[in-house]
């Protein structure tokens, strides 16, 4: 299989779906002439023209809402947020329009569309530019949430998201764009990963590190470190947070009897809160220790390099959390 970057994988997915379906179009700030702020849409304007690849004013609420309106008529907009921090301006249209449309029209009108872009922290971008947006989106029924951590997942899941008949928030990571990985050759046919299927990224038997998005890489590093210590950690990548692959979570917990949830965002009503509730609801008797969560510190992201490092989850925290559920600390 060819090795490509996460960025190239997304680019392939967009190109293939634009090619396949004329109702798909890409819209957002700097996506066309500038090839995207992070170059994800490189070459797409040239290939598909400005009817399909459209630069917008800096009007997040406006173009997100425009996307919803277009989706109401059956078009399949892919709305790019330069980062999900700026999508906060658009949340009204996402939550009040897109997520509710199918329900409040009694099933007459759906919104087959994707909101995508990088979410979470990069390096020293400070409080307003370093936020993990998952909770804001996953909280509302009516919208799906996808968080790929690898190039293959990015490609397969983006294609599925574009084909999905409901609104999908698709969260990438600025620090993931250059990550390389194997992705099936486009020549070998359509590569689509269905939403709602987690993947065990590393098998293990002593403890489950359950996670999503770019934290998958941190989980794998921690598992590697634990292995040297004789601990076999399993890494479960949820990949999509809604629909949630409950079976995969339970299966891993049944096997290891110990779980850690790792996420990039804040702890309060974070994704981990839901997973902990789910495990204690459905697998309480299998647990040998309370589930532990690893998150960002419960503070806005500081700019100073040393404080930022402290605020973010890191390998040592993940290892410590595993030690705790294994009563090794």
């Amino acid at each position, binding site marked *: 299989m060819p090795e490509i970057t996460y960025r190239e994988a997304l680019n392939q997915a967009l190109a293939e779906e634009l090619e396949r379906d004329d109702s798909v179009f890409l819209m957002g*700030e*700097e996506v066309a*002439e*500038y090839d995207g*702020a992070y170059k994800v849409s490189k070459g797409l304007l040239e290939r598909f023209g400005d009817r399909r690849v459209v*630069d*917008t*004013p*800096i*009007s997040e*609420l*406006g173009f997100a809402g425009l996307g919803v309106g277009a989706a109401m008529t059956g078009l399949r907009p892919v709305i790019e947020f330069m980062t999900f*921090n*700026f999508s*906060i*301006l658009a949340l009204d249209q996402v939550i009040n329009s897109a997520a509710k449309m199918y329900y409040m029209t009694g099933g007459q009108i759906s919104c087959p569309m994707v909101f995508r872009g990088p979410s979470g922290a990069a*390096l*020293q*971008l*400070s*409080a*307003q*530019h370093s936020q993990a947006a998952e909770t804001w989106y996953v909280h509302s029924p009516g919208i799906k949430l996808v968080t790929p951590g690898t190039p293959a997942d990015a490609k397969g899941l983006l294609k599925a998201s574009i084909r999905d008949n409901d609104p999908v928030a698709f969260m990438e990571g600025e620090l993931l764009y250059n990550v390389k990985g194997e992705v099936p050759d486009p020549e070998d046919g359509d590569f689509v990963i269905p939403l709602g299927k987690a993947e065990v990224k590393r098998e293990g038997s002593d403890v489950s590190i359950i996670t999503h998005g770019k934290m998958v890489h941190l989980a794998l590093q921690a598992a590697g470190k634990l292995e040297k210590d004789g601990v076999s950690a399993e890494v479960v990548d949820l990949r999509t947070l809604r629909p949630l692959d409950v079976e995969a979570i339970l299966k891993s917990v049944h096997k290891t009897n110990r779980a850690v949830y790792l996420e990039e965002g*804040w*702890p*309060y009503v974070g994704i981990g809160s839901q997973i902990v509730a789910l495990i204690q609801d459905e697998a309480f008797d299998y647990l040998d220790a309370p589930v532990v*969560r690893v*998150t*960002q*510190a*419960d*503070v*806005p992201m*500081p*700019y*100073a*390099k*040393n*404080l930022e490092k*402290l*605020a973010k989850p890191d390998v040592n925290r993940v290892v410590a959390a595993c030690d705790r559920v294994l009563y090794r600390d």
Partner: protein
Amino acid sequence: MAEAMAETKTKAQEGAQRNGTDVTAERMERFSKDELRGFLRDMLLFRRFEEKAEEAYAIGKIGGFCHLHIGQEAVALGLIGPLREDDYVISAYREHTQALAKGLEAGPVMAELYGRDGGVSRGKGGSMHLFDAERRFMGGHGIVGGQTALAAGLGWSIRYREGDQVCVCFLGDAAVNQGAFHESMNMAAIWKLPVIFVVENNAYGMGTAFERVSAVPVVERGEGYGIPTHAINGQDILETWSFMEELAEEVRSGAGPQYVDARTYRFKGHSMSDPVSGTYRSKEEVSEKKEREDPITVLRDHLFEADLLSQEELEEMDAEVRAVVDEAAEFADDSPFPADEELYTHVYSELNEHGRLFLDGRDR
């Protein structure tokens, strides 16, 4: 640049000689020799400060996003310099020199860019979030257009307390496409808030030319709100300074909100990680603008022309501001990183007696 400054007359100067010398002389008469030289000195300081920031970024002392103001100095100085200490200024993320113009010291500003405890925001904000409450520099905001609504609030507070201060709110040309801007303009108009909205019209938002995202020019975007509209040459300190001197007084005496299209140009890339030119603007365009419309060379030439400054004095001036900037960088270097405990300070202004504020369990 002092070396480059010694070179022959710029195009602006030639033009002025052909038809505008008298006009320029007349405009310069408003100011004393010291004032005029002060303008040049301050703009040079801004330029050297940004050049130092650029250097520091290149060696990793400054991180994240860093947006330089090089080329736009006459907007910052001319539209902030004439204000009173108790007037408010609020801006976006391209605000280093605006902070300096509002009287913030170079050392603590540089220390903020370095993410140090001695920074104006204690190292927590960084380049995009410079704040100084005492000097009424209200940031430093990273969400395009967001500060315009805050400006309405600052104006509201002035009116509420029956003060005679003004609030100057800077925004980029691309920010006029944000809903917040339009909502704020309307509120400022209906409540006659003492807010001067200044669009720093450098013709681009990142890699997008303004005319690609607006059907009408910047100056027309204020119309329809019943707010007086002005267009000024932002590259000419004589113009920006005189303009604000008058406008601020009008607003103080109750003229209500104002909308200003300050035409300027960004000489550097959008941020440190973006190219200076590329698909969106040509190298030639940038070098032509630098040659003809550099606010520092424009003023320098006026001063040379009027015999108010010699090459030697200019070099002295440059040496003096370089020393200030070097000192600022030293101050930043010497300032410690914030202590680890600072991670949890300033999240809330008050820690409750009851209940847990931080839910990450790290204190257990």
